[in-house]
């Protein structure tokens, strides 16, 4: 599939997954790949402390929108801008009340602890209002694509279930209307899709399978390709004869080094075997296209690594079938 088709097939891409699978990194790579496909991108973090800014070599700006990459032309190809925005549940609730004619209530909320009562009376209200805020961005149309770094720790289903929950809890009132409108957005694949991220290990793979079925069948939200992060590159010929290891090379190896070579080869072979088991299992149990992102050896992740991951992502998207071709 052409990346520009992929990234313009929905207005909102929600990147979700269990904690520790590299969701923020994936969201940043998705934003970068979309920018290279000419889209102007808003990358929204909803989880609290912001981690995306440093991935773009920028300083976190808190809750202000901050553009970390300006629209530009590289080798005759237009790259869209990338803007970061952090939304917190409390801020979303306050902002929503203010813009819906409850300015007086906002003042009291802060001083009386009423916020907690409201949030308790209508579970899911904060998640709903974050989604509502995203919907407002989507409708305003200032960005071609909105990428969401969704809440961590397996809360993606709860996050996406919130509008239906609030719609049923608050049967009347402005909040009810808001819930209905957000439901329209997340249920429409032209407007919103979810990209789930996992790593090729047992528990995260199980979680992805469960979450996928919950999101698509129970919530009616559409899924994009499954992203498998941190995939170790294959190495052939890890079986070898220690004695012939360095044969022909102009290098003296100590016994310790020979042992280390064997240990490392065995360790890698073991990891690769487990990884293939999990990738096969995921492929067999989850009928989604897979996008695999490579494991990164060593140091921390910054702008260079994100650029590299974006290239891998773009290549993987190009390898996907065009919609309707399947």
């Amino acid at each position, binding site marked *: 599939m052409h990346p520009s088709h992929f990234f313009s097939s929905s207005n909102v891409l929600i990147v979700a997954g*269990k*904690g*520790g699978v*590299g969701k923020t990194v994936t969201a940043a790579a998705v934003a970068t790949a979309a920018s290279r496909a000419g889209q102007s991108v808003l990358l929204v973090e909803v*989880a609290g*402390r912001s981690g995306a800014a440093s991935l773009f070599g920028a300083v976190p700006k808190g809750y202000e929108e901050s553009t970390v990459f300006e629209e530009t032309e590289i080798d005759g190809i237009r790259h869209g801008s990338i803007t970061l925005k952090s939304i917190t549940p409390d801020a979303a609730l306050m902002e929503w*009340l203010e813009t819906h004619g*409850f300015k007086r*209530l906002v003042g009291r909320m802060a001083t*009386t*602890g*009423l916020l*907690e*009562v*409201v949030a*308790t*009376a*209508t*579970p*899911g*209200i904060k998640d709903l209002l974050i989604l509502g805020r995203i919907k407002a961005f989507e409708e305003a149309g200032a960005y071609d694509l909105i990428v969401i770094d969704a809440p*961590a*720790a397996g809360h993606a289903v709860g996050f996406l279930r919130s509008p239906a929950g609030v719609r049923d*809890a*608050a*049967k*009347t*009132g*402005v*909040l*009810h209307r808001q819930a209905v409108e957000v439901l329209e957005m997340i249920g429409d694949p032209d407007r919103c899709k979810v990209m789930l991220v996992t790593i090729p*290990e*047992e528990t995260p793979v*199980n979680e992805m399978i469960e979450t996928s079925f919950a999101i698509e069948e129970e919530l009616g939200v559409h899924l994009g390709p499954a992203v498998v992060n941190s995939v170790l590159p294959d*190495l*052939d*010929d*890890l079986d*070898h004869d220690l004695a012939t*290891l*360095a*044969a*022909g*090379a*102009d*290098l003296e*190896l100590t016994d*310790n*080094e020979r042992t280390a070579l*064997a240990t*490392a*080869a065995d*360790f*890698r072979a073991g990891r690769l075997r*487990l990884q293939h088991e999990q990738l096969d299992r995921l492929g067999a149990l989850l009928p989604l296209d897979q996008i695999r992102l490579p494991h990164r*050896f*060593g*140091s*921390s*992740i910054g702008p260079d690594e994100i650029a590299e991951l974006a290239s891998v992502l773009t290549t993987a998207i190009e390898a996907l079938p065009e919609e309707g071709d399947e």
Partner: protein
Amino acid sequence: MTGFAELLAESQVVICCGTGGVGKTTTSAATALAAATAGRRACVVTIDPAKRLADSLGIGELSNTPTVIDGPWDGTLAALMLDTESTFDEVVRRHAHDDAQADRILGNRFYKNVSGTLSGTQDYMAVEKLSELSSSGEWDLIVVDTPPTRDALAFLEAPKLLTRLLDNPIYKVVTASNKGLIGVANRAAQGVLRQLARVVGAAVVDEAVAFFQAFQGMEDGFRDRAQSTLELLSDDRTAFVLVASPRSDTLDEARYFLDRIRSADLDASGVVVNRMLPATGVGTERAAMIEAELAGSPGASAATALADLAAAAADDEARVADLAESAPDAVLVRVPMLNDDVHDLDGLGRVADLLTADAPSATS
């Protein structure tokens, strides 16, 4: 303090905290197993274990009472997968003046939101269960596997969850109006409630008001309980153990956790770093040189595997050393990456051995 085994021996409560995806549940269960192996009566309270692990422990169902697990240890090992909602119901019944009051609360929809979906409820009920098990006197060590959260203090704040709601001026006004006290504050609050009804609907507001009214007379019981729970959490024999992995993002989170714990005048007694890569004994540069030399010859793949591993292990080690520096008094345990998820007692036993192995684990 020299090692993790000593830390366990000196503790009556171990709170395992940390972000998701770092092996916290496995570490918690293995910690309890280590204590049982040392002859103690140990119980682990878990929130949401992976299904295979839960099944193999015989705790596949939510429960409120510990299930004793048979095994070759001298002490006792028990586990409990916390049923948050029914634990909350029990707490309400315990504090209620009579069954009628308890029923009024348990049937209220606002209460169901509190007990079922409110964030912090899991932490709150885990602490409640801890309190209950601790005062039963049946256990030498209780290990709590905390819900995954970004904020270490969520667990410490949890016991105040209800009392904070009850400190709400709305609650005071709602209950005051029952006593016939109509004043300026009340009229203002009524105005707020009317506005609120326009936002969330009148039925929702009525349920909230009914909840607060039903709670009258129970506040002191809850407040006392919250106080005694906090005392248990700050007791010398309660140890906070931070569980992490050597990935840079989880270590950043771990450092944030440590700062937060310290800001509450508590200290992490232990730091467990799971998934450490095996040490190769070969330096990063030398490994890279070997890889370059062996390119194209037999063993090229092994050399690449060694170069990758040596570089990654050195990075992990540097990051973990950084973390150790920010918790100089904590026992640091490195648990090597295991070849498979732990989902049976044998696996847990191996982790328990690794936790308590006589490795040079104390930082200085």
